[in-house]
């Protein structure tokens, strides 16, 4: 067997052609009869066509069970007045009444505003901080690996454990932060009693948790930026700051877009931090819902008040809001991309 035909056959096989090529026939003299060969080639073709779908099917099967089914079931529940404390309400259909009620529910709008406010207050500083940390970690530093691992520690710490500490920092009486602020304020700040202060507190918790994670993503992207770019920039007299602004940031654009989208969706679904920051543990997000996010409101209506139908309606509305915001995100990103080209 000479080498050229063999190397010729391989690309043909890779391209998906399973039919016996003329160059291969001599090497396979004992080929079965035509009928069986047709059956085989059919099988082969099916395998080629179907196998990719088979490989991705686990995801879609799991998604159907844990994603699609709950989604549909939630939609069905959202049209009922189901309350487990009131027998017989499970099958009472109320049409779209839950959604109608939601649109006039001040508490829902309040939760939406809180979610967007906390989202902005946490996402923007978080990503800027992550960028700065990644930039610093990209330098040749002593104990670089340790530092890089270190920024991930907040991320692997359980939110509940971190909340214990933050609750003490932001406590009204005997709180660490109020103690530190003593020289600058008269009286104490009741962090949970005002929107601005509770938003800051919750945002700090979120930022603390996610900054390291984003920093590592940025760092990984920074390491793919060719060193020569910096070298030639330095030769042209660009300082560190200009290098960062004109080389690092543009190179990171796709990564930044990715983190912005992921953080935005995460911010819309914020739950654990405000849930744990409410030390009265009644899911109200502060006595006047100062930091009650949409998911926390959903949780309160569903679990505490037993309004399964209404809770489901909130869940679906939030889903739609998330899709809309993700779509807007996507459009902006496409704009940036095309502007780039």
């Amino acid at each position, binding site marked *: 067997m000479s080498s050229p035909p063999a190397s010729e056959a391989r690309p043909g096989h890779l391209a998906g052609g399973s039919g016996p090529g003329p160059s291969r026939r001599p090497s396979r003299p004992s080929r079965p009869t035509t009928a069986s060969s047709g059956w085989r080639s059919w099988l082969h073709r099916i395998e080629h066509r179907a196998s990719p779908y088979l490989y991705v099917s686990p995801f879609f099967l799991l998604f159907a069970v844990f994603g699609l089914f709950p989604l549909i079931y939630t939609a069905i529940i959202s049209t009922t007045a189901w309350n*487990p404390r*009131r027998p017989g309400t499970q099958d009472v259909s109320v049409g779209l009444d839950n959604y109608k009620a939601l649109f006039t529910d001040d508490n829902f709008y309040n939760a939406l505003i809180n979610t967007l406010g906390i989202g902005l207050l946490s996402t923007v500083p978080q990503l800027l901080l992550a960028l700065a940390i990644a930039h610093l970690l990209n330098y040749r530093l002593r104990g670089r690996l340790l530092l890089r691992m270190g920024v991930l520690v907040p991320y692997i710490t359980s939110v509940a454990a971190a909340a214990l500490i933050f609750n*003490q920092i932001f406590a009204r*009486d005997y709180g660490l932060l109020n103690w530190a602020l003593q020289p600058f304020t008269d009286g104490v700040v009741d962090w949970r009693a005002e929107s601005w202060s509770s938003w800051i507190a919750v945002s700090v918790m979120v930022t603390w948790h996610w900054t390291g994670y984003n920093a590592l993503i940025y760092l990984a992207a920074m390491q793919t930026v060719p060193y020569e770019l910096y070298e030639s920039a330095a030769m042209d007299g660009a300082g560190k700051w200009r290098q960062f602004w004109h080389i690092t940031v543009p190179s990171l654009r796709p990564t930044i877009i990715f983190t912005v989208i992921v953080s935005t969706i995460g911010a819309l679904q914020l739950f654990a931090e405000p*849930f744990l920051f409410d030390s009265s543990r*009644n899911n109200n997000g502060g*006595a006047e819902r100062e930091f009650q996010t949409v998911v926390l409101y959903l949780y309160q209506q569903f*679990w505490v008040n037993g309004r399964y139908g209404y809770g489901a309606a909130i869940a679906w509305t939030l889903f739609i809001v998330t899709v809309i915001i993700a779509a807007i995100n996507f459009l902006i990103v496409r704009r940036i991309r095309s502007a780039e080209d």
Partner: protein
Amino acid sequence: MRSAEPLTRRPFTALIAVAAAAGLAAALTACGSDSGGSSGSGGSQGGPVTLTINVFGDNFSLPKDRSLYDEYEKTHPGTKIVENRSDFGAHHQNLQARLTAGSGAADLEVIEVGQIAGYIGQPDKFVNFHERDVKTDQWTDAIVQRASTADGKAQIGLPTDIGGLAICYRTDLFAAAGLPTDREAVAKLWPTWKDYLAQGEQYVAKSNGVKWFDAGGHVFTGILGNEEQTFYDREGKLIVESNPAVRAAWDATVGAITSGQSAALAEFSPEWNTGFQQGQFATITCPAWMMGYIQGNAAETSGKWDIATIPGGSGNWGGSYVTVPTQGKNIDAAVELAKWLTAPEQNVKLFKTIGNFPSQRSTWETPDVADFVSPFFNNAPAGKIFPKSLENAPSQVAGPESGVIGNIFTTALNSVEQGTDSNTAWQKAMDDIKAATG
């Protein structure tokens, strides 16, 4: 990770981490009990069986003392009891979720009195104790009724304790403010709630920052503890907005808050726990079960507390029931344990070790209860104070959303403590109640 609702609740674990760990433990042991149960031949008598019991606080044990369970395991060889604790809100929410799902509940589930009305509408999900040879005449009709369906055909819970009311106060803080410390003399300071709050106003004027009480929600609940109808009337109609008693309790509490008497510590929060240790308030509305809470919370204040009669002389707040969900695999064994745990002897033991006051009237006269004094509370005769507050206490009417409504009021009063105008807070509370019950 779950949550809570305060007004009518009982102690719950303070640390979130502990709660989380308990939740995990609950999940793990729930699986364990399933397999243990099935291998134990479906709850037949005598076989080895593991019974799980879900509680929301010091219902039958203290964090370091499970002697009651040990005693049962000793007298019932082959039986193992696993207790899972979670905080008040999480406990009741999880129970509802598991009842709806049809699996996952423990063999025994404790339900608090303010919550049980929410479960009475689902009698098929619980063992009916009428069919289980329980002597219901050991309790008053009112106590049994609260855990029974309207037609009286099913009783889903066995009563454990009952929350007779008193005021617990700090003798050292009283002395520092020039107030009497003797419990007889202290009781004379507040024949009524009005007197109690007037006294508070005088107290905070010279107390150097120490507040009169811990949280407005507790005063509100205390005042309503002497009312028969609060949020619902006898026919089950929601009367919260039109009930003058509710509005009066609200106004009195709001008045006390605006005159600076409240330490504004969200009930059962970590800040509230710290408040005990730091002596941030001089008095607290004190149902019998609160004794256990104070001792667990601020052991170092032993001897500085005393107990005086509740303003108005009577009242009730709290208490619990043990239920057996029908989805369990060891129903017979669970019923047997439930009956044993709620028997008078055990309730008396719990009173002496934890403070939970027995629901059986027959025990109140026994020397074990009547002669009990609490060293932590300066040897206050708890065994006499609490039954006295219950003698004239009305039997309170509760409805399916009583727990939710109580929670809304607590939150609203908390917002007043944070500076919200009281009329705005009241209106918001009414809106929330309408939404929750509508």
